[in-house]
Each structure stands twice: as structure tokens, then as C-alpha cells.
């Protein structure tokens, strides 16, 4: 399976911030609009999967993650997001579970 690789630290910021652009720098909304949404559209067209690498940053607020991955599920459906997104988070293993919850919360889809 081919992957579209996204590294938050290298492609966006080492210090991801709040939920919305108006709340401060490097928000989840900005990450969604500039990187993740485009990559997801591309993945849908090409049949590739997306690997999001969360390591190498200072840490994440819950709102950033929810806005990013919950937002993706709100736009496309939780089922599609769960099919196409793979999370890499060796430094904070619990983030995978949290992100799954945010995605599932949109459509009550369980994995």
C-alpha cells in the first residue's frame, strides 16, 4: 500500500497550537486547511493512504487534534477517515486512542 506521508513537525510546526486560527498561531484549523484536507482529497482520488507522523513536536492540545481529525471526519465521514488515516505517535502513544475517539465521536463508528 502506498502512503502519503505527513509530518506535523517538519511540514507544519514544531509547536502546534489551538483549535482555531483566531485563537493563536499554528492552529488545528490552519493545519487542516493547508495540509490535511488537500492530502485527504489526493488520497481519495489516488487510492493511497495517509500516514500522519505526530512525533517531533512540543506536544498537542486536545482541541488541535479534535479540530484536525474530528474535522476531517465531519467533512468526509468517520468511516472513510478511519480507512485512510494512519497515525504514528511513538512519543505519545495515547494520542492514537484519543484521535480514534475524536473521529468516532462524529458518526459513532467503532473500529
Amino acid at each position: 500500500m502506498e502512503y502519503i506521508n505527513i509530518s506535523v513537525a517538519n511540514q507544519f510546526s514544531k509547536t502546534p497550537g489551538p483549535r482555531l486560527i483566531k485563537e493563536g498561531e499554528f492552529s488545528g484549523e490552519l493545519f487542516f486547511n493547508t495540509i490535511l484536507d488537500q492530502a485527504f482529497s489526493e488520497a481519495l482520488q489516488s487510492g493511497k493512504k495517509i500516514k500522519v507522523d505526530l512525533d517531533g513536536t512540543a506536544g498537542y492540545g486536545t482541541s488541535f487534534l479534535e479540530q484536525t481529525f474530528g474535522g476531517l471526519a465531519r467533512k468526509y465521514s468517520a468511516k472513510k477517515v478511519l480507512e485512510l488515516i494512519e497515525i504514528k505517535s511513538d512519543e505519545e502513544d495515547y494520542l492514537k486512542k484519543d484521535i480514534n475517539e475524536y473521529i468516532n465521536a462524529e458518526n459513532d463508528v467503532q473500529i
Partner: protein
Amino acid sequence: MRKPDKRPKYSLFLWRRHKKIEKKRKIAKERVKTIRRSLQGKSSFQILEFRKYQRYEHVVAPKKFLFLNNTQETINFINKLGYFLKKRKSVFVDLNLVEDIDYGAITVMLSVMIEFKRLKINFNGNFPLNRLVRDKLQSSQFFDRLNKPIISESEYSIQKTDQIFTKANKVVVPLLGYNVMQEASKTIWGEKRMCKGLQRVFLELMQNTHNHASFEQEGEMFWWLSVNHDVENKKVSFVFVDYGLGIFESLSNKPAESKWSGYLQKIKTRVGYENNAEILHKLLDGELHLTVTGKSFRGKGLPGIREVLKRNQISNLRIISNNVSADVFNAQYNLLGNKFNGTFLYWELCQSNENKIWNI
């Protein structure tokens, strides 16, 4: 020439007016006498100081000026300052008798002082007589701020890397946590270490202040962060304050058109709690939010901070907001006899907390 008015009614008016003026004169004379008596035996410097601040409202700080361990008395003092701020009256803070002080108290007093300066209201004070207290206050650069102009409307910063670092802003500043993490980990472990839980706490708190601290508008209130390095004990403590509405007030006072309107009352009605201390406990555990909104993607901030504590990424988390004081680690949630108009958090980062090799 006009004839003098000899009507009895007018004579009575004159007599009454004379009596009133005489009474006022007597009171003023007595006041001057009292002041003179109180100044007898004082040095010329003390007399000059007195004259200088005669028109200020004098507010005496509590002997135990401790936000964490003498919460109610300290809140009373801070509320008095807040009262005079609202009335736009000049204030002289008497710190002479303070025997003990913590960084929480300093940070809150600093935030109030900046508000006075921002509104161009005079704010002054004297030094504590106790040398240890005086040193602590001086190391926080509190007194320096009294005489310096405010540089920016949106950001104030006081920095002294070895002891205390205080910063204020209105929006979320993710880079701040990154910088603080580097400095704090060097103090604790002697090298840069990653403390991702620390960054989460910063982000959640800054975002809460931005979204919920003001009733009227988002991003209206400042948050204050004070970082205190205890080099000897290899421990760094943090104080985060927003002098806004506080957790419970912000939930009670949302405007009618807001989605959060009547939120607190809804909680109380649905789950049968009347007590804010119990509500805070349930909010931190993430139980109440789901009960009321049924939407898991909102209100993750406080439970997110609780999770950080559970994962041993921080220690000794304390929260004071409105009429609740919580020692979260020991699960002690108490009601206060008075109310702090804002949200205060204290936590520590120490050697036993989770940390990882620096990879940023």
C-alpha cells in the same frame, strides 16, 4: 442700594448654613489634629511618604500572603484591590507586615497591578520588613514593574531566567511552552528533555482564557504565567492566572443567545449537584460534560489537564476558581467562604515526572 432681607425665614436659613459650615470646619480641624498626632515622633521621610500617599486607599496585605495555603484571606485582599480598581481609586498596598508570600500571590497581585497601570490609576506600595519575603518579591521584579511603563497593549513580560519568569497575553502562544520546557527541564534534569504534558497544560489553559474568561468577547482577558525555578530542589513550579470570570461564573453568565447559556444550571438540574466543588470534580473527570452536551468533541480542556496529571506528566495540581479550591492530586475539593473572580492553577514539574529525550 438693596435692602437687607430681614424676613425670619431667611435669618433661619443663614443660621442653619452657618451651623453646617461650622460643623464641617470642626470635623476638618479634628482630622488635621489626628493626623498631626499620628505623625508625632515620625521621621521627616515618613512624614513625606505619608503626605505623598495621603489620597491613596490603603490596603493591608495579609501576614500570610499565600494563595495556596491562606486562600480565603489572600482572595479577600485581592478582591479589595479589584474593588478599588473598579472605582478607579489610587491604591497603596501595605506589605510591611507580610511574613510569608508565595508565587501565586505575587502573580495575582502583579496581574492586578498591571490592570491599574493599564487604566492609568496610581498603584504603589511599600516593602515587606521580612527580608526573605522582600527578596522573593524583588526577585520576581514586582517592584521594577511599578515604575516601568507598559510596553505593549497585548503582551507584558518579565524575565529573569534563574528564578521567576512572568508573561501575559490574550491569545494562545504555543512557542511559549516550547521555550519554558527547555528551561524547566535543564533545571530539573540538567539537560533539555521533552515534557509533552506540560505543553498540553499550557495550550488548554491559554485556550480556555481566550474562549471563556470574558463574558462579553472572546480574547478579551489576559492570562498570566509565572514560572519559578527551584534550582536547589530541582523543581519548577508554575502559576497560571486569568483574572476573568472563573469556571463557574463563565458557565452561569453566558448570554441568552449563546450555546452555553444556562449551562451550569443545566448541569445542576440534570445531575442533581448543587455544589460547585462536586461539579469541578466531575468536570475534571470528564463525566459531566458528556452528560449535558452529549458531544465528546467539546470541553476537553479540563479533563485533558487531569489526564496529564494521571499520566504523571505533572505533579501537585491545584485549582482555585470562584468559590472552589481543589487539590486535584489528592482529590480534595473544597468550597471557599468567598469568591475569586478568575481562575488560578498551580502545578509542579519535578524529577519523578515523565520525560523523554529531546527530539524537537
